């Protein structure tokens, strides 16, 4: 797994490349959590290049979203594969996220204030 971060339109975009599972989740956590230490952060997790998210991975996403929301921030997901989206729906994780087809449409929505 590899993680790339960049900033655009005042939002942090985190691209996850590879699988987010028990092997990689700690590494991902160490990168992502420090980015939400300040308030009013809006964050897009770009999952276009992420083929698999395990139970531990979904928990990391949920934890990040919850931590952000208590600091008036927001985390949205973009580019989820159909399979991951499906798994999230069946396991109830989809309730906690707004999802978008692409980073651009996510940024667009954040600009309008999701």
């Amino acid at each position, binding site marked *: 797994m590899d993680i790339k971060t960049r900033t655009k339109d005042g939002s942090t975009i985190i691209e996850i490349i590879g699988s987010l599972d028990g092997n990689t989740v700690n590494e991902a956590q160490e990168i992502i959590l420090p980015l939400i230490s300040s308030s009013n952060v809006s964050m897009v997790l770009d999952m276009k290049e992420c083929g698999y998210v395990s139970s531990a991975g979904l928990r990391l996403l949920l934890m990040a979203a919850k931590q952000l929301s208590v600091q008036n921030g927001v985390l949205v997901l973009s580019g989820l594969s159909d399979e991951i989206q499906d798994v999230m729906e069946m*396991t109830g994780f989809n*309730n906690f996220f707004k999802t978008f087809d692409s980073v651009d449409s996510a940024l667009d929505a954040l600009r309008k204030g999701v």
Partner: protein
Amino acid sequence: MFRVDLHPTHVCDCGKFRLRMGQPLPFGATIVPGGVNFSVYSHAATSCKLVLFNKHEKKPFCVIPFKDEFRIGNVFTMIVFDLDFENLEYGFHMDGPFDEKEGHRFDKTKILMDPYSKSIGGRDVWGETPDWDDLYQHRSRIVFDDFDWENDHPLETPVEDLIFYEMHVRGFSKHSSSGIKHPGTFAGIKEKIDYLKELGVNCVELMPIHEFDEFENSRISPATGKMLMNYWGYSNVGFFAPKAGLAATGKFGMQVDECKTLIRELHKNGIEVILDVVFNHTAEGNEKGPYISYRGIDNKTYYLLTPEGYYFNFSGCGNTLNCNNPIVRSMILDCLRYWASDYHVDGFRFDLATILGRDQNGAPMSSPPLLETLAFDPILGKCKLIAEAWDAGGLYQVGSFPSWGRWAEWNGKYRDDLRKFLKGEPGMVGPMSQRLQGSPDMYRWEDRGACASVNFITAHDGFTLYDMVSYNQKNNEANGENNNDGGNDNYSWNCGVEGETDDPEINRLRLKQMKNAAAMLLVSQGTPMILAGDEVANTQGGNNNAYCQDNEISWIDWSRFEKNKDIFNFFCKMIAYRKAHPVLRSRTHFLNKDYKGSGYADITWHGVEAWNADWSPETRTLAFMLCGMHAKGGTCDDNSIYVAMNMHWDAHSFKIPELPDYMSWFLFVNTDAKSPNDICAPGKEKKNKNQSEFLVGPRSVVILTGKDNK
């Protein structure tokens, strides 16, 4: 904050994992900071090793003995640090005596599943042929026990207000006609929540969802050439794990989250969840059965054994769980508490519950400690506890199951009496008067209330409703047992021709008989239970024991929904009527007197003559009136209700009891009339022209609502 007792003190022999002594409680595998705490009980084992695998791999990557200093009493416990527990499967080697006469069957070569496994691998996808060469078939896994319940809470609906709906998770939506994305799974039920709401049921009773092995005793049916499986799943592999094969995400090991999501979403829609739990035996069978867990961990603790060390077989399935052994009792309690607190389950139905009241020699006890413990347990305090009050050892306790005011029962007598009355047997008006009142003859003596009786006409065991009015004889050839399996006392009647027919008169009568049955069930005091699919006249082709049929025989055929909208509509409106009228849902039994000064007793009995029921054996007509002012023990006001049941083959005119001047009778149901005149929406009843008499057709039920003239 750091805890000083979470530092490793040892290293395993391979040098890869750091260890320390663990905590004996809770049993099982628990995630702790930096590692996993393992804890397993065995009274007679001399040593124990933890066997660790990567998921799906045949060979363990590490075997770690529990050091002597890691044992407390009869519990082996250890923390292993640095594990990738999401990709982990674990088991135990247990060493100890092999002495059949003494009840010991230790075999240190076997890899044994943890009895407290919260997730079990090995049958991840339903029906996928297992690797039979794998020495470890049912593999303990570790789960995340965090789940965002979004403020969900068990619904705690009063039991008298429930309408149970018994379903098989797979059979409910597996059929190709179900039209959903994830047929046959927990996620599939979630997709059908709107359907359940339309029907109006408010509690689903799920047939076994604990991990079982669908390949147990799998074989080819000589009659059909099709594979027979352990489809129903009344044979537990583990008690704490949801069956992976019933989850669409089982292949990803996410069945726990999927199952919890289903429960959360059902709760959001006002629907409770009751689990059918099987504590009477396990999937290990008798002496010839496999080592899965219990017999290799502590045979003598977990099973009822004969003095010669063989397995008692009160379950009819090879062995009997030793339910009143204190260790097993604790495990059962731990299990139920886990499902109630971690899964927010609303209650439990106990399969062959009578076994739970047998002592360690198999004799029935008068105050079984397990049943008493469950009745008074604080965590289970609001859970519904429902017993199937018989076992395969011949003990039948319907009406006498030890209850402490907490236990309800599947009322098998209700089913039998209603069926006999429905088919026109003589001598049934007396028994039926009891069944319609919540069987006070069975439950009043201990003041158990009407809701001690779970009323049902059909359940997974036996004919479906449609088959009950279409077959005189069971038709179980496909089960491959020469039609010897399944019950013979079905009290069914085919209405003139055995099986499917084109005869419109017979089909009309069958439809009417189904409506009669539904009407009587839903106006009975006690809690009604409907078998999933009966509302669309689902058929099993006369198979009354489809436990092994993982195919179209037992899957609900949703195309029947379109064909049988008439009966579906009838069920929906009857359920809505029950919900609209508290007078139908009394928690306590009637007092048979007027204690509200209404001029009418809470319940009064009638026949073709008002106020004069004919109780003679040849009578097949019966009517009763419920006084609305006595609804729910006189605590709320409702309309009055009059129900006339004519199970005779000729029409009879019923004289209707007179109402006060300001009230009249309005027609809600007449099963003799063709749809849409058979039933109306509750509250939309039309006033009867004739207020003193009603001609009730042959084999028909009429329901009238007594309310203010308007």
